[in-house]
C-alpha cells in the first residue's frame, strides 16, 4: 500500500503478464490432452448416470427383460461374441471413415470453387439442395442396384449424408472473412494463393470444424442406412438381424456400439479442432486470472 511499492506492483504485474503469456506457449501436448480430457468428465458423468438408470430400471423389473435387456445382459452379449462384433464394427467404421474423408475432400473443394466462382455457385447450389432433401433411405436401394452388394453403396450414402454440412459450413467460413483483411493482403501484394492459404482458409476453419462435427455423426448414419438396405455385414446388418429374431440383447448391443462409434468420431474431430484452432473463441473460457 505504501507509495514506494506502487512501481513495484506495476513491475510485478508486467512480469506476471509476460510470464503468463510466455508460459502458455510451450505447454506440452500431454498437458493439452489432460486439459481436453478434464473438460470431458461432465458428459462422461451423464453417460454413467444413464447407465445406472438403465440398470436400476431393469434390476427392479419395471420393464420386461425381452423389451429392455439389462446392461449386464447386453454387455454379456458383446463379450461373448466379441469377434463377431469386432468384425462388424470394423466394417461400419471403415465405411464411415472412408465416406467422411471423401466428403471432406469433395465438400471443401466444391466450397472453394463455389466461393471463387459465383456462376458455379448459382448452378451448383440448387443441385446440392436437391441432393440434400432427397431422403437417403429412399435412394439407397438404387445405389445397391447400381453398385452392388459390397461396401461401395454404403460409402456413397455416407458421403452423401456428410457432404452437405461440410459444403455449407466451408462456404460460410470462406465468406466470413473481413473484407479489410483481403484489402490488407492486396496492399502486401499477395497473390490469390497466398491470400487463400495465409488468410482465407485459416479464417474459415472454425466454421469448417462446426460442419465437420455435424458431418461426422451423419457419416455413421449414412453407413448404417446403406447397410439396412442390403448388406451381409456391418452394424446395420447386425441390428436388422437381431430385429428379425426379436433378439433385444443383440439389438441393444448393436445400438450401443453404433452410438459409441459416432461419439468416438465426434470426439476425434473435436480433439483435432482443439489442436488446430487453439486460438479460437470456442476454446476461450473467460480469461483465467492467477493470484500474484
Amino acid at each position, binding site marked *: 500500500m505504501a507509495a514506494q511499492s506502487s512501481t513495484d506492483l506495476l513491475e510485478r504485474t508486467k512480469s506476471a503478464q*509476460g510470464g503468463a503469456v510466455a508460459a502458455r506457449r510451450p505447454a506440452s501436448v500431454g498437458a493439452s490432452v489432460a486439459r481436453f480430457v478434464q473438460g470431458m468428465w461432465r458428459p462422461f458423468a451423464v453417460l454413467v448416470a444413464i447407465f445406472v438408470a438403465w440398470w436400476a430400471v431393469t434390476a427392479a423389473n419395471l420393464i420386461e427383460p425381452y423389451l429392455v435387456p439389462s446392461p449386464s445382459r447386453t454387455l454379456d452379449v458383446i463379450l461373448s461374441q466379441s469377434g463377431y462384433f469386432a468384425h462388424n464394427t470394423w466394417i461400419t467404421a471403415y465405411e464411415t471413415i472412408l465416406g467422411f474423408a471423401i466428403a471432406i475432400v469433395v465438400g471443401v473443394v466444391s466450397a472453394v470453387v463455389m466461393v471463387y466462382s459465383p456462376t458455379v455457385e448459382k448452378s451448383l447450389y440448387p443441385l446440392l439442395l436437391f441432393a440434400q432433401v432427397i431422403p437417403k433411405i429412399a435412394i439407397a436401394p438404387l445405389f445397391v442396384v447400381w453398385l452392388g452388394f459390397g461396401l461401395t453403396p454404403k460409402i456413397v450414402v455416407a458421403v452423401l449424408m456428410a457432404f452437405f454440412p461440410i459444403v455449407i459450413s466451408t462456404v460460410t467460413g470462406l465468406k466470413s472473412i473481413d473484407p479489410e483483411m483481403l*484489402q490488407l493482403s*492486396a*496492399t*502486401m*501484394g499477395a497473390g490469390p494463393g497466398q491470400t487463400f492459404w495465409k488468410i482465407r482458409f485459416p479464417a474459415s476453419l472454425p466454421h469448417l470444424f462446426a460442419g465437420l462435427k455435424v458431418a461426422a455423426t451423419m457419416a455413421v448414419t449414412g453407413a448404417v442406412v446403406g447397410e439396412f438396405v442390403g448388406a451381409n455385414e456391418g452394424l446395420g446388418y447386425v441390428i436388422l438381424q437381431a430385429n428379425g429374431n426379436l433378439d433385444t440383447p443383440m439389438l441393444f448391443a448393436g445400438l450401443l456400439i453404433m452410438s459409441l462409434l459416432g461419439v468416438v468420431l465426434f470426439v476425434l474431430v473435436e480433439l483435432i479442432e482443439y489442436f488446430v484452432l487453439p*486460438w*479460437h473463441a470456442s476454446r476461450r473460457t473467460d480469461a483465467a486470472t492467477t493470484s500474484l
Partner: protein
Amino acid sequence: MTSMMAGNTTTQRPADATTTGAAVEIDDVAVRFRTKKKDVTALTDVSLRIEPGEFVSIVGASGCGKSTLLKLVSGLLRPSSGQVRLHGEDVRGPRRDIGYVFQRAALLDWRTARRNILLQAEIRRIPKAQARERADELIAMTGLTGFEDAYPNELSGGMQQRVALCRALLHRPPVLLMDEPFGALDALTREQMNIELRRIWRETGTTVLLVTHSIAEAVYLANRVVVMTPRPGTVAELIDVDLPAERDYGQTMSEPAFARATGRIRDLLGATTTAE
C-alpha cells in the same frame, strides 16, 4: 477560403501545379458509391498534392470520406472520376509500395503478435532473419516487448493497434497510410505513440497520410492538415502548420502557432458540422 484568420493557412493549391516529383497527387477526384438503396457521393472535387517526406493529417466529420481518400491513394478503390498518382504513376490497382494501417486493427486471430507483424514479410518474401530482426526492433519501439507471443484476443485494443502499426512499417514503405491508428489508445499511450510516430517519420523520411479525429494529434504530427467538409467530402482548407521540425510534445501544445492552427481547424469543423 478565408485565410485572414491566421497567417498559417492557405487555400487549396491549384491543381495545375503538377510538376513531377510529388509523392501523392490527387486530381479532381470524385467517388460515388452505388448501394442497393441509394447512391452516396463520398467525395467530390478533391485535389491534393503531397510532396515526398511530407506528413499530412486529414480531419473531418465522421462519414466525410477520409477512409475513402486513403483507399484511393492505395489503389484499393478506383475513383468515379479524376486521377490519383503515386510517385508520378497512375494508380490502377492495389499498390504494394505502401504501408496501410486500417481503422480496425485487422489482425489474424490465429497468429501471435509477432507472426501478425511477420505476415507482411512472408507475403513479400523478405528473408526470414532480416524480417525477424526488423520485427523485434519495431516491437521494442512500440512497447510491445513481452507480448510478442500473445494472440490478438489477449491484447488490449491499443496493443492490437500497435501490432498493426508494426506490420505496416515492417517493409519500410515510402508512403504510410494511417486510418485513425490511435483511436483505441488511452490518452497517455496515444501521446507516446504520437511522439514515437513523429520520431519514426523524422528518421525515415516516409511520406505519411494520417486520418485522425484528434485535432491536437493532427497538428502536432503534421506539416499540413487537410480539413474536409461533411458529405459529400471535399477539401475545405489546407492548413500549414508553422511549428519547428523538432517538436517537444508539451512545449508544442503551448506554442501560439499550435493554438492558431487548432483554433482554425476547430472553427472549420464547427462551422461545417452546424451547417449540415
